[in-house]
């Protein structure tokens, strides 16, 4: 009985750790949507590119891990900004669905590019760390690091958005885009910075994921939909909602996977999502 409880506790703890990571991932997506009103369908693919960047720099070019990760964040940030400038900006004035589809096209493109460059074999960073043992629970070290880094990322973003001029401008533009020029702010520049920030958050997420999981061109399809669901669950564009939803969702996955097969954990989480959609489609913290 005691062992049963401990493993359940372990599942709960793992759920919390996973929740932190998902919170970071959802933050970037919510930021982009809340400010620019665009959904990056290829968000997970950007993360995938970040993961490959870290992998290549570290294992093939021998960069120190931290340097490779910093580069990973930079690359995805640049990719996000470039995507906004060349792909999204031309359709910003068109129907919202066009923006969705254009990022859908990017999804294919990025997957294909990764396949062409790296092939379809699973790659792994090969970083091994001894698990952290707390009492009778065994927690994976990368997961704890990821959680800490994710929280740091969220905190840094919050500070940026509330304590800096550009951060305040980012929040302002999501409330009233039309009068931004009257403040002397070029809306295009704010969107570009926001895109870079969203990309940077995705890049940070990539660094954390690459510590724990294998890399494959199509992995975006595995965690991408989860991130979307979490954002919708929390209220699309609502960063706080995304955080809340992340932890709830992660618990469903972790504890559900504990009682049943791990895949069913996902199914339960998704079913929970559909149930919430039935009750409150605008999301838990969404505005009506």
């Amino acid at each position, binding site marked *: 009985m005691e062992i049963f409880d401990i493993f359940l506790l372990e599942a709960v703890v793992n759920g919390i750790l996973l929740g932190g990571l998902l919170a970071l991932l959802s933050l970037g997506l919510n930021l982009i949507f809340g400010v620019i009103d665009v959904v990056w369908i290829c968000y997970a693919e950007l993360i995938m590119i970040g993961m490959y960047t870290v992998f290549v720099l570290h294992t093939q070019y021998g960069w120190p891990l931290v340097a490779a990760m910093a580069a990973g964040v930079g690359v995805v940030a640049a990719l996000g900004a470039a995507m906004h400038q060349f792909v999204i900006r031309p359709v910003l004035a068109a129907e919202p669905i066009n923006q969705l589809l254009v990022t859908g096209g990017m999804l294919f493109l990025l997957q294909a590019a990764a396949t062409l460059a790296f092939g379809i074999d699973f790659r792994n960073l090969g970083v091994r760390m001894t698990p952290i043992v707390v009492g009778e629970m065994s927690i994976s070290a990368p997961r704890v690091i990821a959680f800490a880094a994710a929280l740091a990322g969220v905190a840094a973003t919050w500070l940026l958005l509330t304590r800096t001029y550009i951060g305040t401008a980012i929040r302002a533009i999501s409330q009233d885009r039309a*009068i931004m020029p009257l403040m*002397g*702010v070029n809306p295009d520049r704010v969107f570009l910075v926001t895109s870079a920030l969203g990309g940077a958050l995705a890049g940070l997420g990539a660094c954390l994921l690459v510590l724990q999981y294998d890399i494959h061109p199509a992995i975006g399809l595995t965690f991408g939909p989860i991130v979307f669901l979490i954002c919708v669950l929390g209220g699309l564009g609502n960063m706080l909602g995304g955080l809340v939803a992340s932890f709830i969702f992660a618990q469903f996955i972790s504890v559900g996977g504990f009682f049943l097969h791990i895949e069913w954990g996902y199914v339960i989480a998704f079913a929970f999502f559909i149930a919430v959609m039935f009750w409150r489609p605008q999301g838990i913290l969404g505005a009506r």
Partner: protein
Amino acid sequence: MLAVSNLSAGYGSFQALFGVTLEVRAGEAVAVIGPNGAGKTTLLRAISKLIEASAGEITMEGTRLNELPAHEVIGRGIAHVPENRRLFPRLTVEENLRMGAFSARRKFAERLRFAYGLFPRLEERRDQPAGTLSGGEQQMCAIARALMSGPKLLLLDEPSAGLAPVVVQSIFALVKRICAEGYTVLIVEQNVQQVLKVVDRAYLLETGRIRSSGAAATLAASGEIQRSYLGL
């Protein structure tokens, strides 16, 4: 300071202004009055480049504004307080003021002190979301936000709109005080009586054209305004 000559502007196929010419000299307070739909808001938006003029020229202290992108107008010393206040509702009062100082960050602290000196009520509410303020307080905040950039020319779009009569009085008293502080003001208003007591000169705008202009007192006395408003 500000010279508008033969300005035409509109929205898509709808033209709102037809060859408008006016000027505002340094230190002056000038009003543009006219009935609903005359094009007053369009005029201010054309000056601050929120919309592009289709013809005519706008110059500020000799520099042409026509080719300037909208977000550079504030750098030329023109600050626009838009119609309906347009505060950022979920930013606090102080964050709104910070946005006003976006183009002049170095002077933020001193300008903030000046703004709070002018509007002590805003200082009381500095951490409140701007959307929760009363109409009059919002107008004060909007004007303060515009002043944060240290403008030479202040464009005010119907500052008294939608406010209770008592509050309207205080708004116009405020405008008078701003003029006294040395700001040049171009104010667009429907409330003719009150605004003509505050400004030096005024233009009468009717369906996109300047009907007449002159010293405030003269215009107030003539019957032109009543005729214009009543459609005679």
